[in-house]
């Protein structure tokens, strides 16, 4: 497992720059429930959480639901192999954003969301349909994986969102349910370190 502290630091620095820009001429606190406003498109960038060393894409809010598609890249120096990935993400935000007690910064906290990702990895080692030497059903698709995600986000003004997410790999979720003691004995944070990854990203609302 790799440390992503440096990555988070870089993303935070980029986000802080955006915070400074959006704080100028800040309007009064936006009332709760802004998330229930009409649909929005956005640009998204994310690092880690199995979607890539860097992944960029677009998404759309549907009130409390969001769907996004990201194109991710993992350099060989980082992942051991060079990979391109396409991820489809869904999120459900059950709570309205909460204005924080910091009016000058116009920051709202979305305290919890849950979601899932379907990830397609493009590489000659991976396949969706089995190559010809295999009997039918010998293996499932090796180029597809999924994750269960949960996270929180900070909304800066009306355009910027920073999110921090924990993504648990599908095979890890199954293994954890079947062997919780093993993971708790061998990994930190109730064993969740062994089946998942932190991710960080930013969204820029369009319109």
């Amino acid at each position: 497992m790799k440390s992503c502290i440096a990555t988070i630091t870089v993303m935070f620095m980029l986000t802080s720059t955006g915070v400074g820009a959006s704080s100028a001429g800040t309007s009064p606190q936006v009332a709760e429930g802004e998330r229930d406003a009409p649909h929005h498109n956005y640009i998204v960038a994310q690092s880690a959480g199995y979607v890539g060393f860097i992944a960029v894409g677009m998404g759309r809010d549907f009130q409390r639901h969001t769907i996004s598609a990201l194109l991710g890249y993992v350099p060989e120096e980082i992942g051991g192999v060079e990979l391109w990935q396409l991820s489809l993400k869904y999120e459900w935000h059950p709570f309205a954003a909460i204005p924080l007690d910091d009016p000058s910064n116009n920051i709202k906290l979305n305290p919890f969301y849950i979601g899932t990702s379907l990830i397609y990895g493009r590489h000659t080692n991976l396949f969706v349909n089995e190559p010809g030497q295999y009997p039918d059903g010998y293996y499932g698709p090796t180029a597809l994986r999924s994750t269960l995600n949960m996270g929180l986000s900070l909304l800066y003004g009306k355009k910027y969102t920073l999110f921090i997410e924990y993504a648990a790999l599908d095979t890890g979720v199954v293994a954890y349910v079947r062997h919780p003691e093993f993971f708790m004995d061998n990994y930190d944070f109730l064993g969740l370190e062994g089946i998942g990854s932190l991710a960080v990203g930013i969204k820029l609302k369009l319109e």
Partner: protein
Amino acid sequence: MNIDKFILLLMCVLLNSCQYSAWETDIDCQDSYTANLAELAKIESSLAGDAFGVALLADIHVDLTDAVNVVEQIKQRDDVAFVLVLGDITDFGLAAEFEWVCKALSSLDVPRFYVIGNHDSISFGKEIFYENFAPFDYAFSFKDVKFILYNDNAFEFPGVPDYAFLADAAAIQADETRRRTLAVSHIPPVKDVHTEEEAANLRQFLFDEGIDLTLHGHLHEFVYWSDEFGVPHHITGRVKGGRYSMLFIDELGEASLQNCAGTCTAAVMK
């Protein structure tokens, strides 16, 4: 401190691991055969006599609780010189799976030697296995018994097994004392990934090269039979349920096998 900085710091502290892809190849656990060979040499020189036991684990398939269970059973014994892991430690050849099983077996206090299984060979499993566990074909001797660990995953490695390697490893050198020659692979020499003709040719070859016994996994059940050339073949059942096998080589070099599922009983040849 602003709330955003606080939350980021908190998350950095709470979860300091990142995975950029499910198909990364780095794992945080290594069980290299070179380190295990060095350990085996120490055991060989300290072990009195020529009798020894070998634990056989097969088809872990990320059954981590069962793997830990078997590890604890093996640690209770005093007759295990080393462990052979007979392939398919993963389901999908993913780095995370290799790491979990490596950690599950890491508390064993005897060396471990792995053969690659077909499931270990998909995705980037070949690279991960080779970098962290063992080559695909290698051999070593212990108490004048030669163990030849070879790759026969023909769907994932076209052209295997490497007959030249097998012949070279099986050959007895001029200055060598050899009591037994054992061949070890994930898939037995039967019609499976090989055609019936290919499997028969392999069985003939193993006999011609003087192989006394072969050890395998893959079939998920304990099986023990002798082929048309009189070469015995043993399959260790899947580790699920806490199963493993024991190979014993006695002072005279005679081999015997036990299948263990709670209790250990002599393997009966079909």
